[in-house]
């Protein structure tokens, strides 16, 4: 039954956000075409114009991706409220399924779309940045090395490491760190989605419903504040790091190990906040389920 709930939730969200992704796809294709055009055919003026157009296309892609994130948020949260607590709720909440399954399906599908929109934004921003650096360097300095993405990234890492006063980690270590940060980001996005679901649910419970739409925003920020505060408090008290090398992830509780790792071209990542955020997410999930089971009303 959970599979069917997830399938229907994903479809329901898809119908709300697909326009955004179509727009992003079209702009992406236009940008690709602009990339493939040989502007040098039009001489020096063509090269300048080409660069300006490429910059504009990249910016347009990033802006579309950013708008995509916002629209995805609005669609996902709007869909949750509409399907659970408006007239559609009379259908959803009379299904013979556990409210935890219902919430889990909504949470999975909402998080999926939010993470997808984040990923699209990151890819667009990072890709555009690399693309523009590569092309502007090629045009301005005619430096062949900058046309090599691998070289470009390595060079960026080297310069950033120099600025931070540490040994530059290898690309493998950076890849491993990026993996951990992605997981952490995904978990935070999931918690964010759940906090919004909790706030929306609470706003349909008397006496919390009295504040209307403002209530939803207030309850969300209250929940967010509690999670962030508890997370940062616990992170200060309990320190658990993952030391990242090219071949292994090692747990450590020592700040000295972290400094040593960065000095030696390794990386370090604090997992305490991720852990505590996950625990708090479970609490918020159970609380939301309890509200759906015991307190919430569908008033259509």
């Amino acid at each position, binding site marked *: *039954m959970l599979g*069917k709930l997830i399938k*229907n939730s994903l479809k*329901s969200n898809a*119908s709300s956000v697909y326009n955004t992704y179509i727009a992003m796809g079209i702009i992406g294709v236009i940008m690709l075409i602009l990339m493939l055009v040989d502007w040098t055919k039009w001489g020096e003026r063509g090269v300048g114009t080409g660069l300006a157009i490429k910059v504009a296309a990249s910016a347009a892609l990033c802006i579309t991706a950013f708008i995509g994130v916002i629209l995805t948020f609005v669609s996902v949260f709007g869909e949750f409220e*509409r*399907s659970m607590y408006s*007239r*559609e*709720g*009379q*259908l959803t*909440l*009379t*299904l*013979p*399924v*556990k409210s935890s399954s219902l919430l889990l399906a909504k949470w999975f599908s909402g998080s999926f779309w939010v993470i997808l929109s984040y990923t699209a934004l990151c890819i667009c921003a990072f890709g555009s940045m690399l693309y523009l650096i590569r092309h502007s360097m090629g045009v301005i300095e005619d430096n062949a090395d900058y046309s090599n993405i691998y070289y470009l990234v390595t060079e960026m890492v080297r310069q950033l490491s120099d600025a931070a006063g540490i040994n530059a980690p290898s690309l493998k270590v950076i890849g491993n760190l990026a993996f951990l940060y992605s997981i952490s980001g995904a978990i935070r996005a999931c918690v964010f989605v759940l906090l919004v679901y909790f706030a929306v649910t609470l706003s349909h*419970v*008397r006496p919390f419903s009295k504040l209307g739409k403002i209530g939803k925003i207030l309850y969300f920020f209250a929940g967010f504040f509690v999670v962030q505060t508890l997370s940062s408090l616990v992170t200060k008290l309990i320190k658990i790091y993952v030391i990242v090398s090219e071949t292994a992830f090692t747990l450590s509780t020592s700040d000295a190990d972290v400094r040593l790792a960065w000095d030696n071209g390794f990386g370090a990542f604090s997992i305490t906040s991720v852990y505590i955020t996950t625990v708090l997410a479970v609490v918020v999930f159970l609380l939301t389920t309890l509200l759906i*089971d*015991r*307190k*919430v*009303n*569908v008033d*259509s």
Partner: protein
Amino acid sequence: MEYQTTPFGAAPEKAPERRYAFKVRNLSKDYGAHKVLDDISFDIPEGKIVGLLGPNGCGKTTLIKILAGLIHDYTGMVKVGGKSIGIASKASTALLPDSTYFPDRFKTIDCINYFADYFKDFNKIKAIEFSSEFGLDLNQRIKTMSKGMQEKLQLLVVMSRAADIYLLDEPLGGVDPAARSVIMDIIMSNYKENSTLLLSTHLVNDLEHSFDHVLMLGKGKVLVNTGIETLRSTGKSVEEIFKEVIGDAWEVD
């Protein structure tokens, strides 16, 4: 003016030999200062067609929503088909609310597939046949349908279930007199045998011949809860009794 709560007798407190579709004890529900259901208790035996009658705002829809598991902040005990409100009661209860509930993006076939996904007692073939009888295009989207078409679609999917209990909230609410008999025919000829139908309505005259049992609400109380034979033995029609009993209940504070 005080009204009597038991002119035709409240449900007996103990009747272990009978099975009840609904067993309600000390149910209260308020909307702020307005008490809609005030400490009501009643039993409805299984297998009856029950008319849920009462003036506007007397709590009919609230009661149906509580029985369907859509309202939770009430006090008291409610059992539907012998079960507390939950997954099991929802699996055996078919709800036709007083408003349309399918998402606008759905097509007719999506609504049918949705019910088929979740309700084991749903007969998909029957629903498809129904939609063809009703002239509903399987690929037509809800947002392009008139309110009447949406109501038909909702009725056809609900009546394609072989549920133990049907909760029908004003099924004839916005329907013209010509269509009423068609809809009632559909309901009466398609509900599962021995199941219970709770049918809320204002149209007492049109429907009283269909009822086996009548539950009248007013001023937050159960005014009448009895079998149709008991009512008829008074020599009055349900509508006359309705007017008589509800007449007092109309005198809202």
